């Protein structure tokens, strides 16, 4: 069954090897320059005041005369979100659905191997290929983006604090998490295909469910895998975002300035611990910001931040990858069980 599974998978495997090779060339060509910029900016050997070095690195990159690095940084993120979805759609969904749709399962299930072996071989071989493909791509991109990720984690005046490695957008495109996503997307595709028994609708539904899970996990599950850290400090009313609503309620947000961390919530609270909501006084309804700032300072407001520090990147990666792998294994087991029950 191994030979036959690989034979059926050959076309898809060739395509994916070609895509991976293209990415490898792209990152191999542009990566070394990024590393040497990183060294020459002094970041690789900094111990104190690294933020300033990080700023120099960032300005070096943009002064390098090209936006290629910025483009590749985001392209890498997009690619690592796309690949698991594509694996689910093009490797997972058709795996069994196409056999059911074209009737070839009747050929496969009447050779001298049990249906369990048929199913396990298909799931294991293509499933491992899915994980390997996503893992390789993540390895390349994580290596390539490492100087940028490191610079961002140091902060600094020009650093884009929102795109730390642990930030939800970047997190899923680094480390081992894509391996878990690929395994899950693949198993999801196979399961949906097995239940719907038609390739095209199965592909569409696989995409819809996978996207939903990829939105729900970072927003609902990931913040709570490890309880977030909390920090409270006096609000410096000079560097704030301020909005006043029609009813006179005002929302004040201080800077979430925690380089390299994932800020989950950032609230302004009164000395008694309530969330500060105003009401806005004339000082703030007028045009003078300094008057409003003085008034806010007189309120002794504090800033309460809940965040995952940068050091939690790997624990969160392992936990989330494990979660997705467990889901994938569960779906895989469901597929084998269902195929064994020969309800097809």
């Amino acid at each position, binding site marked *: *069954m191994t*030979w*036959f599974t690989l*034979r*059926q998978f050959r*076309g898809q495997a060739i395509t994916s090897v070609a895509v991976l090779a293209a990415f490898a060339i792209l990152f191999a060509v542009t990566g070394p320059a990024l590393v040497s910029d990183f060294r020459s900016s002094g970041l690789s050997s900094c111990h104190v005041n690294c933020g300033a070095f990080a700023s120099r690195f960032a300005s070096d990159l943009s002064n390098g005369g090209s936006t290629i690095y910025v483009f590749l940084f985001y392209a890498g993120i997009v690619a690592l979100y796309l690949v698991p979805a594509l694996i689910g759609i093009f490797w997972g969904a058709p795996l069994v659905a196409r056999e059911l749709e*074209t*009737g*070839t399962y*009747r*050929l496969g*299930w*009447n*050779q*001298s*191997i*049990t*249906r369990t*072996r048929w199913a396990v071989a298909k799931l294991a071989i293509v499933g491992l290929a899915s994980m390997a493909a996503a893992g390789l791509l993540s390895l390349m991109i994580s290596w390539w983006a490492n100087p940028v990720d490191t610079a961002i984690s140091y902060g600094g005046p020009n650093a884009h604090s929102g795109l730390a490695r642990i930030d939800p957008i970047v997190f899923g495109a680094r480390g081992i998490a894509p391996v878990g996503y690929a395994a899950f997307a693949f198993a999801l595709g196979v399961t949906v295909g097995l239940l719907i028994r038609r390739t095209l609708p199965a592909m569409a539904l696989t995409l819809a469910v996978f996207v939903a899970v990829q939105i729900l996990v970072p927003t609902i599950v990931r913040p709570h895998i490890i309880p977030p850290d909390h920090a409270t400090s006096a609000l410096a009313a000079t560097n704030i975002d301020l909005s006043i609503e029609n009813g006179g309620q005002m929302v004040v947000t201080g800077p979430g300035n925690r380089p390299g961390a994932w800020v989950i919530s950032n609230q302004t609270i009164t000395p008694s611990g309530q969330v500060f909501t105003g009401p806005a006084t004339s000082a703030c309804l007028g045009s003078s910001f300094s008057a409003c700032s003085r008034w806010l300072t007189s309120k002794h407001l504090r800033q309460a931040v809940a965040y995952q520090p940068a050091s939690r990147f790997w624990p969160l990666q392992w936990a989330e990858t494990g979660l997705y792998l467990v889901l994938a294994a569960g779906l895989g087991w469901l597929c084998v069980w269902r195929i064994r*029950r*020969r*309800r*097809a």
Partner: protein
Amino acid sequence: MTAVIETRGLGKKYGGRRGKWALTDCTLTIPAGHVVGLVGPNGAGKTTLLNLATGMLAPTTGSIEVLGSKPAASAAQLARVGFVAQDTPVYTSLSVEDHLRFGAHLNPGWDAALAHRRIDQLDLDPRQKAGQLSGGQRAQLALTLAIAKRPELLILDEPIASLDPLARREFLQVLMEATAESGISVVMSSHLVADLERISDYLVVLVSSQVRLAGETDDLLATHHLLTGARCDAGDLPAVLQVIAESHTDRQSTFLVRSGSACSDTLGGGAHGTGAHGTGALGLASVSLDSLSLDSLGLDTGWSVAAVGLEDLVLAYMGPAATAGRGRILLEVPR
């Protein structure tokens, strides 16, 4: 005589609690060593029965044994049964050669020499994609896969229903050669009696999940006759003759009669052998009408006796009322 397929009260319902029964209370025995034709109208349960026999489906009620074991229970059991499914599915994107490798990898008893010889004889290009083959070639490829795994029992589910007459003839030719060479048992379903007539030596007629008729083709032909004479009632015929079907014109009556054992004897299949040579439920030794004179049956010489074709015979049994006892259906007999 051992059975290749033996079922008891077999039933299959599709689609859960409110589903539809495709087969109900089917009890039959198909003996080994034959090329068995399984005939029946659409919806009789032929495909469901064969899918149960290959383990593609699990029974809802009752039991089925194939070659003495539960279908598809193990790799060893799967190796003993070859199956050519309806519409003869093949992997359209794979070449003929790949299909042979597929068979070789997945079947320990694979006969590579046989497979290649067949592909040569069929004049198939091994590099051609199966999706580009004609319907007849595809069916031949599916048959080659099933034969080359060297099964003890070959099951074919309407393999030629969608083929043109020439491809149909070629397919049956290959099937006949293969079974003659290896002596394997074959069960092949069709709703076309003419196809089965060419190759099968044993016939099972399945109507609404029930076996209406089972027996060796030669015996069935020898014990069934068309009687034509002046118009009369079926009841006027001697009791030794069982009327399967009758038709009447103003002046003439035609009866399809069975001499010898009663129909009920063959219900349940091979328990009493082929039925035709056993001792019937009525206690009558089965006899061929040829050996009886019209006189001894109390029929006058106005009656003429003619042989009946297999197709007419089967169609008569497929009729709605031809269950047991005296048939009451009208058979359109052109003679």
